[in-house]
């Protein structure tokens, strides 16, 4: 069947249409390598290419230094005559900082673009070109200058590409932009661009899986762009872009909370604490009535819930405020003691 086809104008063109159709149907769909083969080959070829690039850069640097040594011998004469009050060479600007690390020591690391491997430290600066790697039990939370929080799951590898992009080559990242926009998560199978949101990007076999908790995220490759909205999951590869509903809360998101910085409740209004906790957990907060919502803004918390599981932290924060709560299907309903 050739419907809506541009009308062929001559025998030659008719033949071209018919033969093209016949050949394509005879050939059928092309052979596509299995996902696990693709991932296996990509990992090995990438490692080889990456090592080659590093070797070339190191050789170039060595050649540059050799050439510069002669020049330095002359320059040192001039420099020695100049007053030594000049400012030191500024360190490169940080692209992000380490906010939190979990897992055994040595299970997280930073690989500089020069190839130097360094351990990570909380509050340590991360620079453009740094690659952050986590082992089987390590996780890292990072914060960008605009407040965006990015968390790298275990067995993951992400390279900072400038201030607003991350190249994810394995594992998963979770991003909470907190209202800022423009962070790109680049993967071999597509690029995820947030539109002010919370989302997770995970490489699964030869696909990228996007889960959007709030807001929206654009996912694109060279040919297509699809938009994932809050509460959806998209499986994206060269041959598919499948979207389906996915709850923004639940155990599949748990890892993101495990590497989140603890909320310091000292002096914090109960309402603010609940908003922050709900944001981390993907819940919505609902008060039994508007006067209770007002009251929650006036209840000031003291002490600490660091180290407590979300449910236990809720028990402490709400229980000590003379209130009760019900957590059901991602909805946190706060009531007065007497209204239940």
């Amino acid at each position, binding site marked *: 069947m050739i419907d809506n086809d541009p009308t062929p104008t001559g025998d030659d063109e008719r033949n071209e249409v018919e033969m093209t159709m016949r050949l*394509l*149907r005879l050939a*059928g769909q092309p052979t596509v390598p299995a996902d696990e083969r693709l991932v296996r080959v*990509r990992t090995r070829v*990438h490692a080889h290419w990456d090592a080659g690039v590093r070797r070339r850069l190191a050789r170039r640097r060595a050649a540059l230094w050799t050439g510069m040594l002669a020049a330095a011998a002359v320059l040192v004469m001039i420099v020695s005559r100049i007053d030594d009050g000049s400012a030191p060479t500024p360190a490169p600007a940080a692209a992000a900082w380490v906010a939190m690390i979990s897992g055994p020591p040595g299970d997280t690391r930073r690989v500089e673009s020069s190839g130097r491997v360094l351990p990570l430290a909380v509050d340590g600066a991360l620079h453009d070109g740094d690659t952050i790697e986590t082992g089987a039990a390590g996780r890292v939370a990072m914060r960008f200058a605009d407040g965006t929080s990015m968390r790298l799951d275990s067995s993951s590898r992400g390279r900072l590409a400038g201030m607003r992009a991350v190249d994810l080559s394995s594992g998963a990242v979770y991003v909470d932009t907190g209202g800022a926009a423009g962070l790109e998560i680049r993967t071999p199978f597509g690029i995820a661009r947030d539109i002010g949101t919370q989302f997770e990007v995970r490489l699964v076999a030869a696909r990228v899986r996007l889960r959007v908790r709030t807001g929206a995220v654009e996912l694109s490759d060279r040919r297509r762009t699809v938009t994932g909205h809050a509460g959806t999951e998209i499986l994206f590869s060269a041959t598919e872009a499948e979207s389906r509903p996915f709850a923004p809360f639940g155990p599949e998101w748990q890892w993101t909370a495990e590497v989140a910085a603890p909320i310091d409740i000292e002096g914090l209004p109960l309402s603010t604490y609940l908003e922050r906790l709900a944001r981390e957990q993907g819940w919505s907060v609902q008060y039994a009535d508007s006067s209770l919502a007002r009251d929650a803004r006036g209840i000031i918390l003291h002490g600490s819930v660091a180290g407590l599981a979300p449910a236990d932290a809720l028990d402490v924060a709400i229980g000590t405020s003379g209130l009760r709560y019900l957590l059901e299907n991602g909805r946190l309903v706060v009531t007065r003691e007497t209204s239940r």
Partner: protein
Amino acid sequence: MSDASLVRRLWAGEEAAFDEFFALYFPRLYRFAIARLNGNEDASEEVVQRSLIRGLDRLHTFKGDASLLTWLCTICRHEISDWIAREGRGRAISLSEEKEVARLAIDSLAAGDIDQPDNALRRSEVSRLVHSALDHLPDRYGDALKWKYLEELPVEQIAGRLGVGHKAAESLLTRARAAFRESFSRVAGGWATASGTARSREEP
């Protein structure tokens, strides 16, 4: 994005260039290899991996006389021969033998007897030639042709997938068919017509 630009970016160590390179050439080389290794998937994986590594190591020797895909296929052909020699399984089919097989398959297609039960090998050869021809086309052309003639999508829907208007999609389909005809003629050595086989000039 031209081949030369991709090669320059790869040589400079640009991660996005590697992603592009792998996404473009791994599936194409895999199809090239598997068709020449009797469907042996493990052997194809090994051969393609070696070809890509060798290609990346020798990027500085890529002159741009042929397309990057053709250049990589040449490397892959050597790797296939090495694999066959190393494993002692069968023998590598030479380029001229391949062309002869292709000629017979195209003649069968033109004669209309390709669907005969005893022509399974020729059908399989035509299939290889078609996929090889498609692999040499820009992605948009290949996609448009598959959507139109395999999935039988109306032009309206193809236009939607390509993000262009109806007229532009029609025009793209026309260009895609012409490009396919040229590409197929090049890999197969000719183009079947209702009245026979139109031979193209011999490939170097």
